[in-house]
């Protein structure tokens, strides 16, 4: 029942993007998103779209894998587009009805936003598709390190995320087991109204919670027994390697950002 749940969306591969340092990938994404909203010059948009296409080709992952991410976000994209149609009142009127008027400004503005969201989703999916969750948390931890000086518990946050990721499959397995056990006792999860089916899950969730607390306690004892005492004085087994390609990628995205600022200010 729950066997075919894939954790994260990582698709193994050997592409250039796969080999990049997760820190570089996250930095590029950050630059990409921030500067995407700086300028609305067509030349800049063409650059942003070409960058997306370029990374898409370099990653070599079939388009259907992106669909999952896009499907969820499609609703939001169409919603913002329609909202802009009705709310923005700029430019000459395009369509006049007794109820509402649609202006050309609304169409272009809506299209701009929709396009921005679409390429952001593709870029973000690119990262989760080419990076293992573990590398992603590692990258996040390293990138957030400067915030540690401000009292943000970066090691703890990253460690919590890593443990949560590690236990997802274990808990899924356990859920499947409890469902079977409850079914053997006559529980019914597939018939009746929606409300009934939701209620049928209560006897699954309660043992799952109890077990999770027990697991958490066991894990805490095991960690203590293995000498865990927080992030201080700890060395890392996983080492992230910053390669020339990473510098190149970050530079490319920085240039893109600079071009965005330039089009905004001078053109």
């Amino acid at each position: 029942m729950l066997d075919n749940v894939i954790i994260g969306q990582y698709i193994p591969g050997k592409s250039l993007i796969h080999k990049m340092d997760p820190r570089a990938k996250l930095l590029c994404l950050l630059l990409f998103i921030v500067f995407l909203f700086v300028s609305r010059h067509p030349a800049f948009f063409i650059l942003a779209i070409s960058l997306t296409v370029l990374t898409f080709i370099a990653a070599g992952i079939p388009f259907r894998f992106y669909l999952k991410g896009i499907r969820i976000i499609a609703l939001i994209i169409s919603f913002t587009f329609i909202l802009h149609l009705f709310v923005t009142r700029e430019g000459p009127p395009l369509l006049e009805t007794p109820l509402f008027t649609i202006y050309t400004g609304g169409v272009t503005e809506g299209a701009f936003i929709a396009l921005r969201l679409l390429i952001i989703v593709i870029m973000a999916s690119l990262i989760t598709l080419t990076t293992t969750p573990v590398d992603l948390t590692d990258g996040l931890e390293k990138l957030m390190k400067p915030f540690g000086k401000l009292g943000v518990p970066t090691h703890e946050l990253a460690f919590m995320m890593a443990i949560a990721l590690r236990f997802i499959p274990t808990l899924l397995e356990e859920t499947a087991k409890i469902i079977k056990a409850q079914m053997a006792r006559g529980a019914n999860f597939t018939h009746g109204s929606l409300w009934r089916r939701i209620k049928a899950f209560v006897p699954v969730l309660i043992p799952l919670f109890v077990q999770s607390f027990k697991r958490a306690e066991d894990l805490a004892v095991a960690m203590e027994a293995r000498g865990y005492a927080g992030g201080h004085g700890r060395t890392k087994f996983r080492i992230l390697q910053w390669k020339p390609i990473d510098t190149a990628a970050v530079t490319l995205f920085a240039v893109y950002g600079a071009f965005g600022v330039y089009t905004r200010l001078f053109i």
Partner: protein
Amino acid sequence: MGNNIIEINHLSFRYRHSEELALKNVNLHVPYGQWVAVTGHNGSGKSTLARFLNALLIPDAEGAVIIGGLNTKTEGCRQEIRRKAAMVFQNPDNQMVAPTVEDDVAFGLENAGVPYEEMVIRVQESIDKLGLTGLEKREPHRLSGGQKQRAAIAGAVAMKPELLILDEATSMLDPSGRAEVIDQVQKLRDSENMTILTITHDLNEAALADRIVVMREGEIIGDGTPAQIFRQEDLLKEASLKKPFIIELIASLREKEVDIPEEVTTEEELVNHLCRLKQTM
């Protein structure tokens, strides 16, 4: 003093909110290189005892637990003690911290601040030692129970401990997983000369040790070689333990006047002995 790795003196302990003592005046000395099996029924205090060895529990004023010359009461020594006495727990799912085998084996080393270059070597060494070569990148949910426990032992061995404590480490495994783990523990003992303390209620497993300590209601009621322990019918009955099949078999063979010496306690030894008897006949 010098040749005992474990020194437990006058150890008594009561869990909070509990009326009864979990441990009553326990005294136990274990020399380096010995394999000791602590056995007893549920609630006999054997797992509580194990937690004292790793400084997870600290004795009160009267008692003392000294591991390799270090007292668990000294706060500064505790990390050092945990490095000397590595522990493997019962539930294979609840002690793997990291997402892959090699990351998990490295966990203890990371905590100890071992430099990266040394860590890589030690992780690979212990993975090879426990026969997990090729499974380095596997996630825990894609391992069998026996493999998970071997990974946990690999994590312990990577710390180069002087004492390896297995707290019911095989009780949740199927027979083949159990055999895998026990086989590896025997190999470790022979090749590394490590002191091993297993907590178990399975006397088949205890029979493999050099020495068996029997506990009941927080007290040590028996201590001796497997042969000495298995001879004391009353003691086993008092501890509600079931004699291993092979020991029963030896007893019945003796009744039939087959000559079997005292040292024979395992299936392998019995088979060898019987074959020898047959040749001389």
